[in-house]
C-alpha cells in the first residue's frame, strides 16, 4: 500500500530498478516515457514545453497555462494508475509530483557519469566524448525543466526521503532496500493522504476540463480543490469570465460545487518602459514576494495618431478546434508591435517567478487608465513609474501626481511613486543608517534621563517646579511626542527589517 516516486537522471538504470521493484512487490509500474507518449496522444502541448527549455527565453505567459495543463494531466494519469493505493513511477522529477501529500516514498537515484556515458554511447551510437557532451547538456536542460515546471531545485535534498547511489549497490539490492522502506508504516497512505490525493486529482480534472472547453481554454487560471469543491482564481482582467468558468465546472463529474474568486493581492505597476534588470523592478518584486502578491503591469504611452487604444499582452493560445487540422503547421498570428517598451520581457520574467498578473498597453492618458481599472478594486498597492515622459520633466511630474490622485480617489488604494517604494516599504542601507541614528538618539535620551534624575525630578515636581510650573508643562508637551516619534520610527524600521508591514 505504497506510492514510490523515483527521480533518476536520463539514461540511468532507473527503469530497470523500478521494474525489479515491481517484480518483487507486484505493484503497477509506470514511467515518464510512457506518460509523455500518452500526453502527446491526448493533444497536450508537451512538445512546445520541452522545446522551450532548449530555446531561450524559456518562459512566456502563453506557456504558463500549458504547463499547468501538463501537470494536471500527469496528476490525472498517475492517479488513475494507482491500484490498491500502490504505484511505482520513475521520471525526471518524479519526487516532486503530488506535492504536499504525505506518506509517499520520494526517492532520488544517482548514477556515475561514466556509467551513463557508456549507456548513451551504445544507445545513441555516439563516441565517448560526444556522449559525455550530450549528457552534460541534457542534465542542464533537465535542471532548467524542473526549475520551470516544478519551481524547485533537483539537487535540494530536503525533497527526498532517500537518495540511492547506484555506483556500488546492485539493482536487485537497491530494489530490496526500496521494498523494505516502502513497507514501513510511514509510507502507507493515511486517510489524510488519500483525501489530499483526491483533492489534487479533482483540481487536475477541473484544470483539464477548463482547458478543453472552448469558452475557457485560453484563460490563465489558478485551480485548487478541497472536499469535492473546486476553487478557481482568475486575474482581475479576466473578471468577465467568472460566469463561464462556473458554468463549465458545473458539468464536471464528482464536483459538489465551485467557487470563482479574483486573485486577492496584486500590485499594479504603471510605467512607460519596463526592464526586468533594473533596481526598480527588483524592489517591486521584493515587495511582491514578501506579500505573496502578483504584479500587474500597465504600459501607458501617448495615444498613437491622437487615438487612444488598449492592447492586452497575449495570453495562452486558444486550442485549435476540431476540423482545422494543419499537421502542426499553423498560420502566423497577427503581428505584434516590435517595440513594446520591455513589457513582454518583464512579463516573461514575472511568469518565471510565478508572479505575473498579466499586462496591458494603454495608449492614452488618465481617463483611459481609470476606464481600464473601473471594475478592479483588489490592488494592495499602485506604483507609478516613469510616465508622460514626452511632456517634459515638470509636466511629467504634475501629470503623474494627478494620475496618482485620480487612481487613489477611484480605488481607495495606496498610490506611490517608484522612487518612494524603498523608503516606504523596503529596508536598505539608508534605512539601516536611519535605524542606527535613531537608536543612538534613544540611547542618549535614556542615558541623560537616568544620569540626571535628581534635577529632572526637581524640574518636574520639586523646588524648580515651584518657580517654573509652566515650563515643566511645556517641556512635557514637547518631549513626549519627540520620544514617541523616535520610538515609532525605530519600531517601523525594525518591522521593515523583519519583513512585517
Amino acid at each position, binding site marked *: 500500500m505504497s506510492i514510490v516516486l523515483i527521480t533518476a537522471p*536520463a539514461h540511468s538504470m532507473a527503469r530497470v530498478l523500478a521494474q525489479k521493484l515491481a517484480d518483487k512487490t507486484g505493484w503497477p509500474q509506470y514511467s515518464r516515457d510512457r506518460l*509523455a*507518449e500518452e500526453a*502527446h496522444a491526448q493533444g497536450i*502541448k*508537451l*512538445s*512546445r514545453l*520541452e*522545446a*522551450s*527549455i*532548449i*530555446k531561450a527565453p524559456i518562459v512566456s505567459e502563453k506557456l504558463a497555462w500549458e504547463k499547468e495543463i501538463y501537470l494536471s494531466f500527469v496528476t490525472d494519469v498517475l492517479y488513475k494508475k494507482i491500484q490498491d493505493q500502490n504505484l511505482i513511477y520513475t521520471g525526471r522529477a518524479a519526487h516532486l509530483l503530488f506535492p504536499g501529500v504525505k506518506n509517499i516514498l520520494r526517492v532520488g537515484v544517482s548514477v556515475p557519469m561514466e556509467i551513463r556515458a557508456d549507456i548513451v554511447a551504445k544507445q*545513441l551510437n*555516439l563516441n565517448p566524448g*560526444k556522449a559525455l*557532451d*550530450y549528457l552534460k*547538456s*541534457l542534465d542542464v*536542460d*533537465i535542471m532548467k*525543466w524542473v526549475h520551470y515546471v516544478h519551481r524547485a531545485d533537483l539537487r535540494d535534498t530536503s525533497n527526498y526521503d532517500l537518495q540511492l547511489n547506484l555506483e556500488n549497490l546492485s539493482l536487485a539490492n537497491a530494489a530490496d532496500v526500496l521494498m523494505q522502506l516502502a513497507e514501513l508504516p510511514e509510507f502507507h497512505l493515511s486517510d489524510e493522504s488519500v483525501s489530499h490525493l483526491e483533492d489534487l486529482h479533482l483540481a487536475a480534472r477541473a484544470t483539464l476540463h477548463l482547458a478543453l472547453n472552448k469558452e475557457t481554454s485560453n484563460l490563465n487560471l489558478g485551480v485548487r480543490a478541497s472536499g469535492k469543491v473546486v476553487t478557481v482564481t482568475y486575474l482581475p482582467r479576466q473578471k468577465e469570465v467568472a460566469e463561464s468558468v462556473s458554468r463549465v465546472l458545473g458539468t464536471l463529474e464528482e464536483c459538489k460545487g465551485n467557487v470563482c474568486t479574483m486573485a486577492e493581492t496584486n500590485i499594479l505597476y504603471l510605467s512607460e518602459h519596463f526592464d526586468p534588470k533594473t533596481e526598480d523592478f527588483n524592489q517591486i518584486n521584493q515587495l511582491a514576494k514578501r506579500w505573496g502578491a502578483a504584479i500587474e503591469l500597465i504600459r501607458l504611452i501617448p495615444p498613437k495618431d491622437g487615438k487612444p487604444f488598449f492592447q492586452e499582452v497575449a495570453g495562452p493560445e486558444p486550442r*485549435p478546434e476540431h476540423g482545422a*487540422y*494543419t*499537421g*502542426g*503547421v*499553423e*498560420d*502566423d*498570428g497577427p503581428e505584434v508591435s516590435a517595440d513594446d517598451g520591455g513589457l513582454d520581457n518583464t512579463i516573461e520574467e514575472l511568469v518565471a517567478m510565478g508572479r505575473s498578473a498579466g499586462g496591458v498597453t494603454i495608449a492614452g492618458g488618465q481617463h483611459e487608465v481609470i476606464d481600464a481599472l473601473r471594475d478592479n478594486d483588489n490592488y494592495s498597492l499602485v506604483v507609478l513609474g516613469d510616465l508622460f515622459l514626452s511632456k517634459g520633466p515638470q509636466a511629467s511630474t504634475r501629470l503623474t501626481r494627478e494620475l496618482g490622485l485620480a487612481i487613489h480617489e477611484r480605488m481607495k488604494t495606496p498610490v506611490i511613486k517608484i522612487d518612494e517604494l524603498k523608503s516606504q516599504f523596503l529596508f536598505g542601507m539608508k534605512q539601516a543608517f536611519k535605524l542606527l541614528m535613531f537608536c543612538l538618539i534613544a540611547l542618549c535620551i535614556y542615558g541623560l534621563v537616568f544620569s540626571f534624575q535628581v534635577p529632572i525630578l526637581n524640574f518636574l515636581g520639586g523646588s524648580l517646579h515651584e518657580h517654573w510650573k509652566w515650563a515643566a508643562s511645556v517641556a512635557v508637551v514637547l518631549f513626549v511626542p519627540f520620544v514617541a516619534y523616535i520610538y515609532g520610527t525605530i519600531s517601523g524600521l525594525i518591522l521593515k527589517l523583519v519583513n512585517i508591514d
Partner: protein
Amino acid sequence: MSLEILILDDETIVGERLQASLEKDGHSLEAFTSPREAIKSLNEKVFDIVVTDIRMDDIDGIKILELVREKSPRTKVIMITGYATLEVARESLTKGAFDFIAKPFKIKEIRGAIEKAAHALQMEDGG
C-alpha cells in the same frame, strides 16, 4: 538568397503548407512523405537545407540527419517533431542538427530558422 530545400514529413499536409509558404520567399522546394524517396533525392542532389520530421514509420529523422551530415556537412538540417522531448532535442543537436522546432509551430518560426541557416551558409561560403 534562393535556397534548395528538401522537406520530409510523413504527413502530406506539412509539405504542402510549407511549400506554399516558403516558395513565396523565392526558395526552391522538394517535399517528400517517404524517407526512402527523400534519401534517393539526397543521394542525387546537394540541398542547402533539409527540414525533416523525426518520428516516421520507416526511417526516423535522426537517421536522415546522420546521413545528411555524412554526405554533405555543409547542408543545414532543421528537425521538426510533434513528439519533442529534451532527450530527442539534445540528441539531434549533438548529432549536428542546425535547429529543432516542436510542432505545432507557426510558419514564421520555420521561416526564421531558414533565414538563420541561410545566414550561416553565407558566412561559411565566405560572405
